[in-house]
Structure formats: structure tokens, C-alpha cells
């Protein structure tokens, strides 16, 4: 029996899960439930991935790569490792390969099929590259799904009613907040927001500062400021102690922080939950501001949110939950908040892999575009203007077309430039790619040219330019466009393509 797995390919850590016999399970890698998303290239040619790679970072930071997810989709980013030049796709594929290898060992079966999660704000280029990384790892990527959607699937598959859900995802280093509309088993992301530089690590830092200040006033020693080996070791111990205290404060009113020998002195203090809450209040307020912002983007009020679900270990803090309760409502929390994204992906993977299996629940996922997608076209003043073909917040997978014409007799080709953005001046938007369509004779004036944007389920753009025949066969299409603000009758254009009356060229868009 073969399985399909769900992968949460994270910036800091990655998790792989499987849904089998009605149960979703996290697959341990090197004995741990999550694997650091780190790759290290050793001098002897071997490659370390995960915990050992993270461990090697200090020894060889040049050939050890962290946070590759931040660069996925960036074509200019190259990692020079020895004589090799590696892309973020190459690095991500090594992480995925290790996860899959772990899954194969754990399941004792071959694993080729996977659903991979991506942030809801990922552009089509970032999605495209994530999919390529999966393919380079030898995987059949069944689907890419947004992380908040995966979390909702893991939390609420058994919920029958339609609802608007907020996903509050506070990881170690990043904070994401999303609003989703769930209709039956249809999931649609309405709005996303967050802060790339805010996470649970900041909470640890606050406690570290608080304790080190106390220690300095007692001993005159600066644990955080000194670079002596004593101080480095003391910092590591203090970091462990503060992390443990933070976890303890999720369940207790007080937590002891003890380091028997901190730079030669005993450190023994207690932090109360009230003190901790005061320390992290500024960070919590930043998350509150993000929640308000996404509500505004989705044109919703707090009372419109039916459920708030939590993702990420930092959400175990009662102060975090209280802040959400004050702002929206009491949130729901799963047992393993760090793994819910991978769990949702695993459920989705089982659905796509074995849709007929009696123990899977059908799930359909649709997403919305964060920005408008379109091309530049000459307007009535003969100026190039951005024509949005897929407006912002359009649910996909979807297909949209627009009809234009060549603008002079004898025009031999049409150059169409694809942009993402909201500005009517194309140059103010993000350039995504260009397609050149040679115009076949007769190149009379006003040759009808259709453009079709298809945004697939993974959020990847397939852009097609179609030269329609300059005869009566195109008349219904032109008429349709006149009656529908220039929209292309895509099925009719496709019919002409099938009959050989029209010709087309398609590209998959990858942004620069």
C-alpha cells in the first residue's frame, strides 16, 4: 500500500504527516516531530539536512543554508556552494527529499505523492518554485494548499456549517493571520496579513532581558552583552531556562528560572505570569493590529468571525489567547498546534490520492488572488495601460480572457507583458513575464487577439495569447466582447483553437 503525505515546508522547521486508517499522524524525523529546514554542505561532499545541518551552522555558516523559504521565487538568489551554484528550489528539494525519506522509513512503504503547504501570501512564482522543488525531490505534488487552509482542514473537517474562520499563526519567528470562508468542505482565503519579524522567539528574548537585568543589578555582570566564552555558555543555559519558563507559564502562575552557575554566580529567580504578560504586551499589540488589518481587508467585523483557530506553539500562552478573546472571541486550540498545518495537508493528500476511499472526506480548496493580474494594452489615448484580467480577491482555480486587436496593418507580432499589481501605469506594477505571438498573415488592420489567464489550483499562471481568424467565425466572439466590457468568450475561442481556425501560444509565468 502506498501513502500520500502532507508536508508543512516551513521557514524554520518542517513537518511531514500522513493520514491513514482514519487517523492523522506526524512522522518523526531523527526522533523529532519537526525537522529544522536547514541544509549543510560538508567539505567531503556529503550533505546534512535537518538537525545535524542546523548543528553545523556555527562551524560553516557559508555552506549551511537556513530560511530558504524566504527566497523561494527569487530568481536572482543563488547559493554558491563550492563550485556549484544552487537555487532556492535546489535547496528546498533537499529538505523535501529528507522528509520523504523519513516518511518512507516510518511507513515502510514507498511515498511519492504529497501535498505541500505554502503561505497564503505566496505569489504565483513562489508557488511555482515550491512545486518545482517537490518535483525535483522526485515527488508527485498533488496540490499546493495555503497554510491557513490546511490548519482549518485539520481543525474543522467535522464541522458541517458554513463559517468565517480566523487563523492566528504565531510561530517561532513569523506571525500570520488569515480569514477564511468555509462553505461545507469548500475553503476560501478571504484576506491575509501578519508580520515576518514577530514570533515566539521575541517572547523568549523579553524574558532573557528581564532576567539578565536582574542578574546585572545583583552581580554587575552582563550576560547578554559580553562575548566571553563564560558568557556565551551562560547565555545558552539562560536561553534553555527561559524557554522552559515560558512553557511552564502556559500552565502555571509562576515559573522558576534557575542557572546554578551563571558566569560563576548562582542565578535563581521566579517570574510570574503577570510579569511575563506585561513583558510581551507590546508584541501582542502588534498581533492585534494585524488582526484588525485583515478584518478591514476582508470587510468584516469581529462579530462576523465564527471561530478563531490557533497555530504555532507560541499560541499556548494564556496572554495570547486572552488578547484574541478580547479582540475577537475565545480561540480554539488543538493538542499539537505545531503540527496542524501538516495534518491538514495530510488529510488533503489522502483525499486527492484516494478520492474513492470510504474513510476520507471530500475537501475542495479554492483561494483568492492577493493582487490583480493582467497585461499592458494600448488605451484610447494610445498609451500603454494595465488591464487587470483577474482582479484582486478573485477565487481560483479560474480562467479569464480579454479580447484586443492589433493596432496597425502589417503588424507581424504582438508582444504581451504580464504584470501583477493595482496601478493603471504598468511600470508601477510587478513585471511577471512576456509572451510574443507572431501574427500570421493576412496581417490586416485589427486582427483579433485574445488573451487568456488561467490560474490553476496551485496558483500558477498559464498565460495564452490566441490569434483569432479575421473572418466571420470570430464575429460572435467580438460581439460577446463588445457586450461584456472586452471579456473574451473563452469556450468559443477554445472551440476555434480545436478546429484549427485559431492559433495560440502559452507560457507558464514565472516572475523575475
Amino acid at each position, binding site marked *: 500500500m502506498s501513502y500520500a503525505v502532507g508536508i508543512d515546508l516551513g521557514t524554520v522547521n518542517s513537518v511531514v504527516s500522513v493520514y491513514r486508517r*482514519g487517523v492523522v499522524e506526524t512522522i518523526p524525523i531523527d526522533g523529532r516531530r519537526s525537522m529544522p529546514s536547514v541544509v549543510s554542505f560538508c567539505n567531503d561532499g556529503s550533505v*546534512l539536512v535537518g538537525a545535524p545541518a542546523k*548543528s553545523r551552522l556555527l562551524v560553516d555558516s557559508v555552506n549551511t543554508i537556513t530560511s530558504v523559504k524566504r527566497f523561494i521565487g527569487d530568481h536572482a538568489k543563488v547559493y554558491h556552494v563550492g563550485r556549484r551554484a544552487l537555487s532556492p528550489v535546489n535547496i528546498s528539494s533537499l529538505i523535501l527529499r529528507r522528509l520523504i525519506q523519513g516518511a518512507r522509513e516510518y511507513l515502510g512503504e514507498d511515498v511519492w505523492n504529497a501535498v505541500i503547504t505554502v503561505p497564503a501570501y505566496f505569489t504565483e512564482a513562489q508557488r511555482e518554485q515550491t512545486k518545482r522543488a517537490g518535483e525535483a525531490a522526485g515527488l508527485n505534488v498533488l496540490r499546493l494548499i495555503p497554510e491557513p487552509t490546511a490548519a482549518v482542514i485539520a481543525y474543522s473537517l467535522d464541522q458541517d456549517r458554513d463559517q468565517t474562520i480566523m487563523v492566528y499563526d504565531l510561530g517561532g519567528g513569523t506571525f500570520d493571520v488569515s480569514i477564511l470562508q468555509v462553505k461545507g468542505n469548500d475553503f476560501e482565503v478571504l484576506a491575509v496579513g501578519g508580520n515576518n519579524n514577530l514570533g515566539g522567539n521575541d517572547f523568549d528574548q523579553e524574558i532573557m532581558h528581564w532576567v539578565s537585568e536582574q542578574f546585572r543589578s545583583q552581580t554587575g555582570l552582563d550576560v547578554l552583552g559580553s562575548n566571553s566564552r563564560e558568557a*556565551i*555558555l551562560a547565555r*545558552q*543555559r539562560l536561553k534553555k531556562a527561559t524557554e522552559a519558563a515560558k512553557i511552564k507559564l502556559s500552565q502555571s502562575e509562576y515559573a522558576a528560572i534557575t542557572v*546554578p*552557575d551563571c558566569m560563576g554566580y548562582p542565578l535563581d529567580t521566579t517570574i510570574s505570569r503577570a510579569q511575563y504578560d506585561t513583558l510581551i504586551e507590546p508584541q501582542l499589540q502588534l498581533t492585534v493590529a494585524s488582526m484588525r488589518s485583515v478584518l478591514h481587508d476582508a470587510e468584516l467585523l469581529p462579530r462576523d468571525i465564527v471561530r478563531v483557530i490557533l497555530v504555532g506553539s507560541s499560541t499556548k500562552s494564556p496572554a495570547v489567547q486572552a488578547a484574541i478573546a478580547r479582540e475577537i472571541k475565545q480561540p480554539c486550540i488543538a493538542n499539537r498546534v505545531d503540527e496542524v498545518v501538516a495534518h491538514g495537508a495530510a488529510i488533503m493528500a489522502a483525499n486527492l490520492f484516494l478520492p474513492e476511499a470510504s474513510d476520507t472526506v471530500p475537501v475542495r480548496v479554492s483561494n483568492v488572488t492577493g493582487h490583480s493580474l493582467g497585461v499592458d494594452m494600448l488605451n484610447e489615448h494610445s498609451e500603454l495601460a494595465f488591464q487587470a484580467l483577474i482582479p484582486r480577491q478573485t477565487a481560483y482555480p479560474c480562467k479569464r480572457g480579454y479580447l484586443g486587436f492589433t493596432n496597425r496593418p502589417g503588424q507581424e507580432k504582438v508582444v504581451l507583458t504580464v504584470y501583477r499589481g493595482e496601478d493603471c501605469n504598468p511600470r508601477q506594477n510587478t513585471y511577471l513575464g512576456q509572451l510574443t505571438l507572431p501574427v500570421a498573415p493576412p496581417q490586416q488592420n485589427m486582427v483579433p487577439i485574445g488573451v487568456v489567464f488561467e490560474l490553476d489550483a496551485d496558483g500558477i499562471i498559464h498565460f495564452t495569447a490566441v490569434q483569432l481568424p479575421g473572418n466571420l467565425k470570430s464575429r460572435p466572439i467580438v460581439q460577446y466582447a463588445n457586450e461584456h466590457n472586452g471579456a473574451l468568450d473563452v469556450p468559443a475561442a477554445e472551440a476555434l483553437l480545436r478546429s484549427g481556425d485559431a492559433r495560440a501560444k502559452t507560457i507558464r509565468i514565472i516572475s523575475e
Partner: protein
Amino acid sequence: MSTATAIAQLTTEAQYREGESYQADMKAIVACEAACASWRTRAARLHDGVKSAQTLFEGELDRFSEVQTELPNRFHDDWYNRYEGLRLLTKTLTQLPDQLAKVSMEQYQQPLDAPLTAQQWTDLLQDTGEWPSAYKRREQILTERGNARYQQIFQAREQLVQLKQGVLDCIVEYVLPVLDGLDEGERLSRPLIEASRQESTAVANILIAWRNSYAILRTQLLPILEQVGIRQITIKPGMLIDYYRHEPCAVEFDPNAVAESINAEVRKGYDYVDEDDRVYVLRPAQVVVFQH
């Protein structure tokens, strides 16, 4: 083929398949129960061992406090810091039994449902009508019953994970820091002994006896860990670093040394043998590494 013959054939196959699956599931749950029993035994050994070690720690702490009067004034600050350090170590170790008591030691007791008999299968399939629907129904029942059994296996495994993690967390939080503290205390007492030697042999001897307390306490704790299946990771200076078992905390640049070889151990590492006889790292050893 008549309906009766078809039902009989479906029943035979169903019985065989469920029997096979049941045996495999039973094996999984028995293995899980055995592993839980092994970890409960380890927890009990840890509890008893630490309880007896506490008495020794308290005794050494008393001995430490008596030393103060024998030391010249200029050593009093150092004595205080070391004494406070040992007091904190004792306090940390004392918390372990309470923390261990919070770890769920419950045994998973729900037995797996026995496979259906031929008669039960026949009864379930007979009302479904023709072959295609009877076949579909059989597959559905097999899946549902198989999933229900797997749910139990999953719960038993979760219980094992929680038990094992609970015990290991207690060791990492309440025993390993004590061992680290003993190493650190011993290390910090060395320069004091050197300084005192030049002044008075008597004072140096007091400090040596005091330093030996750390070794005595460590000798008491390590066998307790061994009984629980926890072992110290052996490090030899000059050996190449193994990133699965060692964690670099500092790098020293030396063109004459072998790149990525270990210069010194800063904090001891520990591994443990799991119920499947595989060795896992509990905490990597922290080392200083040479680099070119």
C-alpha cells in the same frame, strides 16, 4: 453464481482479511504495551534513584556549610557562590519526583475488538442484496472495523509517546542540569584550589575535599541514569565531530588542526536506548571545534 454462494465467498475472504489485519494490529498494540511497561519501569527506577540521591545531596550541602568556618575570609564570596550553586542543584533534583508524578503512567486497557465470526459476516452481508452491493458493504465494514482498531493503536501509541516524553523531559529538565552544575562547580573550584595552594596546604586540602563532593554526587547520579537507559556520549579531543551527536558551541581557528575535529568538550551529551534497541540522542554534547 448464486447470491448465497457469493455471500459465502465474500464471508470467507472477509474473515481471512480481517484475521490477518487483526493479527498485525494485535502485534502492534502488544509491542506498544510492552514499551509502555518498559518506560514505567524506567520511571520508577528514576524516581527511587533520585529519592536516594537527594539524601546524599543534602548531606553534602551540610558538609559544604560547615566548610565556611574553616576557610579564610577571602574565600567566603567564592564559597557562597558555590554553596548557592549546590543548593540550587539540590533544589532542582528535589523537584523531579513531583514532576515525574505528573507524567501519566496509565496503561492502555481497552482490548481490540475480536474479528467477526463467519456467521456474523453472513448476517451483515445477507441483507445487502446482490453481489456488487454486498461487496461494497463488506469493504466498508472492513475499513470501518480496521480504522476503529487503528484508532486504538494510535491512542496506545500516543500514550507511549507522552509517557516516554514525560520521563525524558524530566531527565532533561531536572537531572542533566544538575550534572552540568556539578561539572561546572568542579571546574570553577579548580582555580581556587590553585590559588590556595600557594597560601596554605590546609586550606587547599579543605577545598580539594569540597571539590571531591562534586565527583561523589556525580558518581551517585550517573548509575541512576544508566539504569534508565541513558548514557553519556563519549568525546575524545581530536575526534571528528558527528553533527548528529555533537553540537558545536564555539569554533577555534587553527590551520594545523584537522578541520571539524573536536578541541574540547564543554557540556556533556547523553543518548538513550529506546524500546526498539535503537539509540537516540537525548541531548547532544557541546563541543569546541577546530576550523581552518
